[in-house]
């Protein structure tokens, strides 16, 4: 798995699944929370990556 984007998507999906399973009680709530957490992980990573792009490492 050498693609940064695929790594991000897989990591976000697995962590969101665990959080949704632990923090919500019904299937519907879990699905909703999991999708929101997944979107938040991916969006925040892309935004932070874009904002920090001009800075040298």
């Amino acid at each position, binding site marked *: *798995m*050498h693609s940064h984007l695929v*790594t991000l998507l*897989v*990591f976000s999906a*697995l*962590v969101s*699944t*665990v959080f949704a*399973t*632990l923090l919500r*009680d*019904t299937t519907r709530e879990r699905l909703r929370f999991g999708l929101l957490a997944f979107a938040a992980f991916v969006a925040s990573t892309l935004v932070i990556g874009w904002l920090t792009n001009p800075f040298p490492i």
Partner: protein
Amino acid sequence: MSESRAASAARDSSRTVAAGLLAWVWPGLGHLFLGRRGKGLVLMGSILALFGLGVAMDSRLQLHLGLEDPLALLFSLAQMGVGAPYVLARLLGYEAGLVTSPVYEYGNTFTAVGGLLNILVILDALDTARGVRGK
């Protein structure tokens, strides 16, 4: 407290301890022990996938218990949170990792986060065994 109540309390207490230990030994096993089959299987699959992918991405499974490098100690403890899979991976020879690999840091993140998430799973199993959480 009557004798039957004391016996019941002791049984509940040993059930809680067993659930916590099983949850640490193998991710999701505590929930399966408590009869939460679906939840246990989802947690098991997700955490084992995180840890397994981390190992596949050349993560170092370090055993660093000294205090001279606190961050390395915390990293080790995080990875150990996953339980038996950590021991198994080390026994199979994956402990060194490959620092020159382009995905080495991703692998480290996957294994450490897998262990940390399993600590949350252990706490949830303990709460479930004590009746604090319902489903």
